[in-house]
């Protein structure tokens, strides 16, 4: 039998070695960002701003100007807002005005500014099993529900999901049953599921345009109408309520998003690839 003491000593050595390795790891990370030690800014946002590619255009400009490293966490609006309430993010870029106001009221978010808008659209199977046509969105939801056609929902508390639930409430229908498919995933993944399952789905136009080429089974069935406006706001997480928040850079980010140069970039984004803007300027 081996001596326990020897093994224990060995184990302690291993741990010491491990501790040493831990430091080298951080050293490497530091060396990588040695340029001028940019500060980290955690941006919690929706999948649409990342999946459309908008952030890939905007963030490098902001990072360059302010020597900040923006860490984008692309989740649904629900989770982004939750990260705000818990102080896990520094700045939010989301699109669920009602829920956002709650955050401002509760004091978790400050400096909330309108940034841009695009619109929600209803897409559905090309053979249109529920025979929905260009009518207004409420009527379309009713028709789909009555005809028992598949309806795909993100079901993830995202801005789009919240919008969809708002419409169901407006027409007094509680969606349920086998034809109401809840994916619990982001917009892109949900669109693909709708494509496979022959379902109708509410989506933001940016993600739709970016993915249209893969969604051969789907087409736009309802669009336009002022009810479908999809408004994005940017806001800071309140540093007085959450002490680890990087409020200096968060404030710069809010200013950056509403500056006229950035607004021009936002509006011109996507014109080359899609022949139309994916987002429109919309400051107050």
């Amino acid at each position, binding site marked *: 039998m081996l001596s326990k003491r020897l093994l224990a000593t060995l184990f302690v050595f291993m741990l010491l070695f491990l501790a040493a390795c831990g430091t080298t790891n951080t050293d490497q*990370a530091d060396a990588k960002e040695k340029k001028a030690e940019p500060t980290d800014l955690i941006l919690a946002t929706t999948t649409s701003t990342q999946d459309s590619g908008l952030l890939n255009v905007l963030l490098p400009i902001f990072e360059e100007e302010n020597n900040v490293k923006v860490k984008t*966490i692309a989740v649904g609006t629900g989770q982004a807002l939750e990260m705000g309430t818990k102080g*896990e993010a520094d700045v939010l870029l989301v699109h669920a005005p009602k829920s956002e106001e709650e955050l401002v009221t509760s004091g978790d978010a400050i400096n909330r500014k309108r940034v841009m808008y695009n619109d929600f659209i209803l897409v559905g199977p090309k053979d249109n099993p529920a025979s929905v046509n260009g009518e207004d969105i409420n009527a379309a939801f009713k028709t789909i529900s009555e005809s028992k056609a598949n309806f795909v929902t993100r079901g993830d508390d995202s801005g789009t999901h919240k919008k969809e639930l708002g419409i169901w409430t407006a027409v007094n229908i509680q969606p349920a049953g086998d034809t109401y498919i809840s994916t619990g995933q982001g917009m892109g993944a949900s669109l693909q599921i709708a494509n496979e399952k022959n379902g109708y789905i509410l989506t933001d136009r940016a993600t739709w345009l970016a993915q249209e080429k893969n969604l051969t089974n789907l087409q736009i069935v309802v669009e336009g109408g002022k009810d479908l406006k999809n408004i994005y706001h940017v806001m800071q997480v309140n540093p007085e309520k959450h002490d680890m928040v990087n409020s200096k850079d968060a404030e710069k980010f809010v200013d950056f998003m509403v500056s006229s140069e950035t607004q021009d970039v936002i509006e011109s984004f996507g014109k080359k690839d899609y022949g139309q803007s994916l987002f429109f300027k919309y400051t107050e």
Partner: protein
Amino acid sequence: MELIIDGFRKAIEMILTGDREIFEITWLTLRVCFMAIFISSLIGLPLGMLLGLTRFKGRKIILTFINIGMGLPPVVAGLWISMLLWRSGPLGHLQLLYSPTAIVMAQVLVSLPIVTGLTSSAFQQINEKMLLQIKALGATKIQTILILLKQTKIAIVASVMAGFGRVIAEVGAAMMVGGNIQGDTRILTTSIVMEVSKGNFDVALAISFILLTVALLITAALTLLQQRKRVS
């Protein structure tokens, strides 16, 4: 079928043209996985040895927990590490969430039980009589350990390989604690998930081929090491 060929072509193209981003993502994947498996081996191998060779009170309970841990779902590990690292969590002041270090922590959590568990079963297989014989021949403790390590080499390398397989395939935890941040915590598996959700199936497939190639090369190297004839 066409898509697979497209993906394959894209993968080759990405490698040949030296796509900077894919290179960085692959490099980060390797760094993170190696660091994780290195730490897991560093702790897991001696711990497994200890649990395999000695008998003490509470040993069975520890072994039970390690065996459960071998099947620990990565998302659970991800959630636990996230909660630990949240700004509001106990280690929040370290600001580690959404960093490669956080990914390493989650991967250690899922691979450590595998390395420990498999190592301990290898050492439990050692014949008691051989231990006695080694002792009888007057080996020092260090010598004894070296002899035992030689005896169990195949199983030890297998345990490291199994652990490595776990970390390089891992996606749920890496997504949660890393956040898939471009140029920072985006690794091969999380990029595949993201590209799929963006509808870029060809890019996703291309990355999957790169991931498979990397895994294949490393596993092959370890297998060679494992099957090498004894030198002495």
